């Protein structure tokens, strides 16, 4: 194995890792707020990708330009998911909690397939294309833009939850629902907001991915699986740490493929999940 190959892998893993981190951030935020895992997270990502694909196919709008639209749409979907489904199962048995969002995942995925078929779609002639060569390492420009965009969105999310009053109220709700509600915070609103923000995160991630990734009904699930691992690494509910979690997942995925066989690369990632939750259920970075 040459050092260029490794370097190439590291750069690629890092770039993808930032996108994973953004997907995982929404998941972690929702879990931190109400201890519910959104098993439809991957399908929300898939819908975001279809949304940006169709705005391109129908109106010729590049996925990068339609980002605000995609983010808004997914925020609305997240909000609707909370209002229409999740709020009824907040205190339900674990089984109902898991299968409510599981049912949603099945519904969205097969719905997409029924509506648009199982075919793969790709945005042709995107705004940004081509690649960059630096020090013997090739970097696809769409990938570079996507990870830059993901990092930017992550930064905005971080500023939102740590610097704005609403964000602080979100954090307070996550830490202690009852205390927050005694302080006059409308926790129902915070929960809905959490889902909307989580939706917006996958909306942005989906839009960015569409610039270089195939769009099809099953596209979301593998991303969601990687996001679960990233969330576990960061510690369920610890949003800032998912940045590190996502990057680690991206690196492990690529390096696993280099060290072993590319078809085995995900074993490293899932193995990592098992090791982390068994050894440190609170995640590598923290707060539980």
């Amino acid at each position, binding site marked *: 194995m040459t050092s260029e190959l490794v370097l190439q892998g590291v750069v690629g893993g890092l770039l993808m890792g930032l996108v994973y981190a953004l997907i995982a951030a929404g998941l972690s935020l929702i879990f931190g707020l109400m201890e519910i895992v959104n098993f439809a997270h991957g399908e929300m990502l898939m819908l975001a990708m279809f949304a940006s694909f169709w705005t391109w196919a129908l109106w010729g709008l590049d996925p990068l330009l339609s980002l605000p639209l995609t983010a808004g749409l997914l925020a609305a979907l997240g909000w609707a998911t909370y209002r229409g489904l999740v709020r009824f199962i907040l205190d339900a048995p674990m089984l109902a909690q898991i*299968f*409510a969002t*599981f*049912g949603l995942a099945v519904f969205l995925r*097969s719905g997409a397939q029924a509506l648009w078929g199982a075919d793969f779609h790709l945005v042709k002639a995107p705004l940004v294309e081509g690649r960059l060569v630096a020090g013997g390492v090739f970097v696809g420009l769409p990938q570079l833009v996507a990870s830059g965009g993901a990092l930017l969105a992550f930064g905005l999310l971080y500023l939102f939850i740590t610097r704005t009053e609403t964000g602080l109220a979100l954090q307070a709700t996550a830490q202690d629902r009852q205390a927050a509600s005694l302080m006059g915070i409308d926790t129902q609103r915070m929960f809905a907001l959490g889902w909307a923000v989580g939706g917006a995160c996958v909306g942005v991630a989906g839009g960015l991915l569409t610039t270089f990734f195939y769009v099809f009904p099953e596209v979301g699930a593998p991303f969601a699986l990687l996001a679960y691992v990233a969330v576990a690494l960061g510690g369920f509910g610890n949003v800032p740490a998912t940045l590190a979690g996502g990057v680690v997942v991206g690196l492990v995925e690529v390096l696993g493929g280099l060290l072993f066989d590319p078809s*085995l690369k995900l074993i490293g990632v899932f193995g990592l*999940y098992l090791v982390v*939750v*068994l050894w440190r259920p609170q995640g590598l970075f923290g707060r539980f």
Partner: protein
Amino acid sequence: MARGRLALGVALLAAALLFPAFVTLPYPRDVLIRIFLFATLAQAWNILAGYCGQISLGHAIFFGTGAYTSGVFVARDVASPWAAMLVGALLAVVLSQVVGAPVFRLRGHYFAIATIAVGEIVHILAVNWDFIGAARGLYIPIKRPDSLVNFQFHQSKAVYYYIVLGLLLLGLGVTRLIERSRLGYYFRAVREEQDAAASLGVPVARTKRVAFAISAALTAACGTFYAQYLLFIDPESVLPLSLSILICLVAVLGGVGTLWGPLVGAVVLIPLGEVTRIYLGGTGKALDLVIYGALIMIVSVVQPAGLVGIARRFRRAA
């Protein structure tokens, strides 16, 4: 009341037993075989998840264990598929204990996602394992003549029907037995409140292991049946995450933690898939799942005990 129910049960069983004698068309029989197969799989899952509260989302690994054991046994002439059913079940039990030992320390969502991770790891390994045919899959050579020993019946597939009906009855019988024994109470106590159960002397870890072992063995037996029935298996048909999920969904729709829930779920779901496929063609394959997903959401919100729970509620109201 009790007598009426018994009569209904006997009538249903008689109808099930006589069905192949009256209906010799292959298609309806095939649908029933799949209903029984999924009812048994869902029952196996129900024992672990519904009664004992350990929500496994990776049950396909046990199905695959049973399927591949018989595939390898027959393809390499090791022994009869019946021996494979036993060995497969045994291997599944071993696998469940190996997986369970660390994973049972996790609770709730952590456990569920860990079982997905294990399921995916096994799936990927199978895709890359040449001995069992890797991604190409494994053809089970046709053996003639038809015989019970060979577990292959090409003249009349009715025998498959009776074998899977036997598996279903086994699943129902085992569940009934559990419900009416100390083990069943322990399962439910562990599901409801682990610490309280431990404080009353319930050996929590061992109880979970027993549930996992029973569930895995029954699932593996179904896997062996599937391999012998279709005579071709590959990782995409016996090990995918989507199979694990389908198993859970059948049970959840029918009613988890109930004796009849898994059968009810399979009776509703499998034909639903058939009907939409017949009337809507290719896209119908997805449309049945659209309806299914919606039903699962509704069931989760309205009545976690599924269709059986809803029926009970009506009966109580009536």
